[in-house]
């Protein structure tokens, strides 16, 4: 019956479990309500499977196995709660076991089951990214309930104690359980809710992309997880072009990860990255995806950012970059989603097309924006453009100010290094024969 699984297959078991987690939880919640209890039961079933499957083999219907085990946990839970006993037993008694386990998600013969799973997974994503939860709670709950990660794994990824993360998750579940939030398709505000899900996935990706903590073999990387969940969202909403844009943006950005930091954690800016180390398969997939999506219309900020990333990724060297095209895309992005960070990035494109002085003028206008006045990004960008304009002293001073204002260790190291290099250059060429002091 069951296929034996060797130790090398532990990873596939884990991947399969995480794939099935939202389906199992979605099905349970849609049938019985009580998201909180269903979530606990699903986690317990996943843990049991993770313990047994690598040794006993993967059952023929993995999803059915998980549903059965999770349902049993749920029934035990309800039975032990005497105040709810009668009501819940009636619900369970009314559900034939065959229906509970006999509808594998991968069964092509049962398209209705697939559609129900699709809806349940979507409802689950909407639930986890509900606007009444704080953003950190949305992120944590999405990773656990949809991503199938354990609380320990999520805590490790965000460098907080496990108890803190457990508290955050249980509070989020309590907010949902309080009854104000329903497990259903949002009527009327579906677009807005999809944007909220995209935003959470985007934040998870960024958290993973920017973390410099190297290859951690015990916890799945957050950017891989964000890409996996965005693929899921795109499967659920194949017509949503911004979801396609978001996935393309993630792939095109993630492709640069191998070249983005040195082994010691030092940041390498785009201009200095060894482009041969970029992941060409991710670039190919991202470019294909954004090329298919853009002509469909309804162009939004994720698609535009993906298009900009694609132009960068397709240039074999920094000098080959098609800056006029990038500037055109930034013009569109600024119209679609005006925001000071976009203006700042656009200033770089303006500088590359029309010269550093034109870029610096844009930045001068931004300096009056209260949101940006103290930003290390503005200072770092101004430093870069001043350097291009030949103002070595101004650039060094800006780099140093930017370094003081960033909270990121690798960024601070990078910016301080730039300032020091400019200082050396500003003092004149070294090695002129005089003895070192």
């Amino acid at each position, binding site marked *: 019956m069951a296929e034996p699984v060797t130790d090398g297959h532990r990873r596939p078991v884990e991947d399969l479990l995480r794939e099935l987690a939202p389906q199992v939880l979605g099905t349970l919640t849609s049938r019985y309500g009580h998201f909180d209890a269903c979530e606990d039961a699903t986690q317990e079933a996943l843990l049991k499977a993770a313990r047994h499957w690598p040794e006993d083999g993967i059952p023929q219907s993995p999803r059915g196995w998980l549903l059965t085990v999770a349902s049993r946990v749920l029934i035990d839970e309800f039975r032990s709660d005497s105040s709810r006993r009668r009501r819940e037993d009636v619900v369970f008694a009314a559900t034939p076991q065959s229906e509970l386990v006999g509808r594998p998600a991968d069964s092509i013969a049962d398209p209705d089951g697939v559609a129900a799973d699709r809806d349940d997974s979507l409802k689950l994503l909407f639930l986890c990214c509900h606007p009444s939860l704080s953003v*950190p709670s949305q992120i944590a709950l999405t990773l656990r309930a949809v991503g199938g990660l354990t609380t320990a794994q999520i805590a490790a990824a965000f460098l907080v104690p496990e108890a*803190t993360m457990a508290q*955050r998750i249980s509070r989020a579940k309590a907010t949902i359980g309080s009854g104000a939030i329903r497990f259903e398709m949002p009527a009327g505000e579906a677009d807005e809710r999809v944007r909220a899900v995209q935003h959470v996935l985007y934040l998870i990706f960024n*958290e993973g992309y*920017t973390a410099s903590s190297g290859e951690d073999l015990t916890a799945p990387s957050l950017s891989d997880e964000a890409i996996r969940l965005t693929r899921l969202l795109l499967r659920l909403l194949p017509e949503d072009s911004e979801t396609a844009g978001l996935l393309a943006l993630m792939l095109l950005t993630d492709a640069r990860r191998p070249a983005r930091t040195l082994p010691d954690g030092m940041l390498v800016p785009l201009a200095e990255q060894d482009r041969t180390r970029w992941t060409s398969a991710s670039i190919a997939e991202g470019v294909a995806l954004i090329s298919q999506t853009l002509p469909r219309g309804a162009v939004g900020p994720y698609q535009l950012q993906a298009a900009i990333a694609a132009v960068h990724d397709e240039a074999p060297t920094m000098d080959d970059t098609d800056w006029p095209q990038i500037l055109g895309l930034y013009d569109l992005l600024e119209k679609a989603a005006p925001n000071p960070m976009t203006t700042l990035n656009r200033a770089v494109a303006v500088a590359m097309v029309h010269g550093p002085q034109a870029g610096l003028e844009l930045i001068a206008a931004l300096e009056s924006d209260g949101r940006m006045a103290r930003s290390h990004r503005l200072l770092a960008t101004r430093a870069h453009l001043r350097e291009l304009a030949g103002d070595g002293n101004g650039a060094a001073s800006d780099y140093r100010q930017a370094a003081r204002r960033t909270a990121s260790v*690798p*960024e601070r190291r990078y910016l301080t290094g730039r300032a020091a290099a400019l200082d050396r250059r500003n003092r004149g060429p070294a090695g002129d024969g005089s003895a070192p002091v």
Partner: protein
Amino acid sequence: MKYLLMIYGNQEKWSTFAAEDWPREIAKQDAYNKKYAATGELLGAYGLADAAAAKLVTRKDGVPVLSDGPYLETKEYMASFYLVDVESEERAYELAAEMPWADQNPTEVWPILHESATDA
């Protein structure tokens, strides 16, 4: 984003509180700590012992050397610190402003450097 919230003071300052007020003041702080531990934002709250119990540690020729101090007679020293993990800078300021003694004693809010870059 993680922030360190620091409260400074000295013995003279603490002595201005009447002894019978202490249990109530401590209860307020406990309530605050419980509230934000429950939201998952407070990672830890720690009160420091008196400055008299502090030691200075250096190393001389590879051997640890312990001495009394630092001697902070008049200057305020750190009395307690709180490690929080919050959504935004504004939220860290909110938590600091809600400290039970915020109307008498300022809280210093320091962003903590993190091991990741902020730009994508």
